[in-house]
């Protein structure tokens, strides 16, 4: 019976309990819900699916296969660790938002059709913004709004794509959408729109800036949640819909490379992690673009390992933020003296993301890189190697070095709270466990007929050479004073276009356009005002419809709803 219940819904419905219980119990409910969700997944076997007929469409609200199961497992695992990390938080909004967010991400992963996917896709956008707004600062409010516009925009693109695609093919099945030639140029417009929607959420170049803009403004615990779900949901969606899409290979390499340079000069360490997240997504995108069994296994396993070490990195920086009130590299340094456990966990996460042998990144990222090597994609291979040195720079060295070592900032604080420490140590344990013993992870990957052995003499040796010589380069750069000092400030990125250039352009046009824009704006608000007065006149406390308030309101919404369905119906024909 329980396996008939859509996964994810457990958390969305369960989150409704949270506000009803005592404040001290709320975080515990949030810890318990992913456990329940995970238990449900264990009962589900590949092949299970549930249909629901809505008007002319048969929705596959649940479809279980090996790809969705891996993402389901890791989403629940990440949710459990993050919720434990947030055990001290006394803010109902954050707990509810986080659970709805996780639930909808899981729901989306098990969605068998594009309409169900769209619904969950939008819920992740709307619920997650509260994890940013809960910082309750002006900056967080603003970046949260920008985040919401872009995320909902991705949903609108998806919906538009689904409508066009359904009109063309009469199918809303969420399977492989790209043709066998792997070319976007021969794909239908609907498929291209869906691709773009996935691209926004996966932070493709030029569509990426919401990530670095919003994540550093999230709450201490909220950003840990954010780091795990949105982008990896998009990676899952790409892996399902667009495996073997050629353009993804060069695109992925660009994604691994350009954030590296920004990460070098960025002062806010949580923003460095956001750039680093973007770079890690690049490896997964390359794997999807190649589209072979080994590379897709590589993408999936890398997403799995990445969710853990990236959450762990955000946890350690969250702990620093919680204790010191900042994550600016210019203010920090020498924290290893007061936060030794956090420091150790950070170093383990840094080793994992850099792909050091015996840590998780080593056994996952290398699958993608090996496949690039086997296929003799020279430039792609070289690009990924440079990016690997870049990961060593920003996540392997910069994050732990400037927060915990470097010059002693004189800041003396307490070690992180016990619940944060438990979550971090558990995360660090998993990073090492996967690195030392990858077999259980390999066993749950989507393709089982591929053999991959990460621990060969050559692979261990070449990885160590690349990474340790990179560390040596850092040491030389520091000793010679060539390494650029950290500097307060912001670095221009693509968000400049919509935060500076676009407003300036609008200002310029309105200044030169003889007040046309002002006129349009004024007349629009006048019309809105008139409409509002009319509605108030009819529906307000003294209005005609006040006499039939409840029935009137229901009738009004029912008509609106019917109209919506009617439109959908005609579109679908």
């Amino acid at each position, binding site marked *: 019976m329980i396996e008939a219940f859509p996964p994810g819904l457990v958390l969305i419905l369960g989150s409704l309990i949270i506000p009803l219980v005592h404040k001290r119990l709320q975080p515990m409910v949030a810890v318990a819900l992913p456990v329940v969700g995970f238990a449900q997944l264990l009962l589900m076997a590949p092949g299970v699916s549930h249909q629901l007929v809505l008007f002319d469409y048969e929705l596959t609200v649940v479809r279980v296969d090996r790809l969705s199961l891996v993402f389901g497992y890791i989403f629940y695992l990440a949710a459990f660790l993050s919720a434990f990390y947030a055990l001290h938080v006394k803010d109902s909004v954050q707990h509810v938002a986080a659970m709805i967010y996780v639930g909808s991400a899981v729901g989306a992963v098990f969605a068998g059709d594009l309409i169900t996917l769209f619904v969950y896709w939008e819920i992740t956008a709307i619920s997650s913004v509260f994890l940013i707004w809960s910082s309750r600062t002006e900056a967080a409010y603003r970046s949260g709004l920008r985040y919401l516009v872009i995320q909902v925009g991705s949903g609108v693109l998806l919906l538009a794509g689904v409508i066009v695609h359904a009109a063309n093919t009469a199918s809303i099945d969420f399977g492989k959408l790209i043709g066998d030639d792997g070319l976007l140029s021969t794909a239908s417009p609907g498929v291209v729109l869906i691709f773009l929607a996935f691209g926004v959420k996966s932070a493709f170049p030029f569509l990426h800036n919401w990530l670095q803009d919003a994540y550093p403004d999230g709450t201490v615990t909220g950003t840990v949640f954010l780091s795990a779900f949105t982008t990896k949901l998009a990676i899952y969606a790409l892996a399902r819909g667009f495996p073997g899409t050629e353009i993804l290979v060069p695109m992925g390499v660009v994604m691994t490379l350009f954030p590296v340079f920004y990460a070098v000069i960025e002062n806010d360490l949580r923003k460095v992690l956001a750039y680093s997240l973007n770079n890690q997504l690049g490896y997964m995108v390359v794997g999807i673009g190649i589209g072979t069994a080994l590379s897709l296994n590589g993408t999936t396993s890398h997403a799995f390992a990445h969710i853990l070490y990236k959450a762990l990195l955000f946890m350690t920086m969250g702990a620093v933020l919680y204790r010191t009130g900042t994550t600016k590299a210019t203010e920090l340094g020498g924290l290893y003296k007061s936060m030794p456990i956090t420091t150790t966990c950070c170093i383990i996460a840094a080793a994992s993301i850099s792909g050091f042998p015996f840590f998780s990144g080593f056994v996952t990222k290398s699958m993608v890189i090996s496949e690039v090597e086997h296929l003799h994609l020279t430039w792609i291979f070289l690009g990924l190697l440079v990016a690997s040195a870049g990961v060593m720079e920003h996540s392997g060295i910069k994050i732990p070095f400037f927060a915990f070592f470097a010059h002693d900032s004189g800041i003396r604080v307490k070690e992180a709270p016990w619940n944060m420490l438990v979550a971090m140590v558990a995360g660090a344990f998993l990073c090492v466990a996967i690195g030392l013993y990858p077999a259980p992870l390999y066993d749950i990957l989507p393709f089982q007929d591929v053999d991959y052995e990460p621990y060969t*003499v*050559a692979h261990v040796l070449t990885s160590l*050479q690349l990474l340790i010589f*990179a560390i040596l*380069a850092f040491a030389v750069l520091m000793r010679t004073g060539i390494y*650029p000092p950290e500097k307060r400030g912001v670095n221009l990125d693509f968000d400049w276009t919509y935060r500076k250039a676009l407003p300036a352009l609008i200002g310029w046009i309105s200044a030169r356009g003889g007040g046309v824009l002002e006129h349009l704006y004024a007349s629009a608000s006048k019309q809105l005002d008139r409409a509002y007065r009319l509605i108030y006149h009819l529906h307000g406390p003294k209005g005609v419809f006040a006499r039939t308030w409840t029935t009137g309101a229901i009738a009004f919404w029912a008509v609106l709803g019917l109209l919506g369905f009617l439109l959908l119906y005609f579109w679908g024909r």
Partner: protein
Amino acid sequence: MSDEKKHWLDERRNVDRIYWGLVIVCVILGVADLLAHRHAYFSWEGLPNFYGFFGFAAFWCIVIAGKKLRRFLWRPEDYYD
């Protein structure tokens, strides 16, 4: 501060030790490359200690490129306010 426990890394001598330790490890890795047999998919990949030199050079270039980029990209903290 004065009554605080002195940490191992507080001594300049120990930082130097780490630095030279790193150099020694790199030399060992370079020598190991000559002894180990590894299959090269690309001809240049088989050059002695290719990965070591590549890692060093790539890291160096990334940092220098970032430093140069900062000249164009850097703005004061209140730029967007």
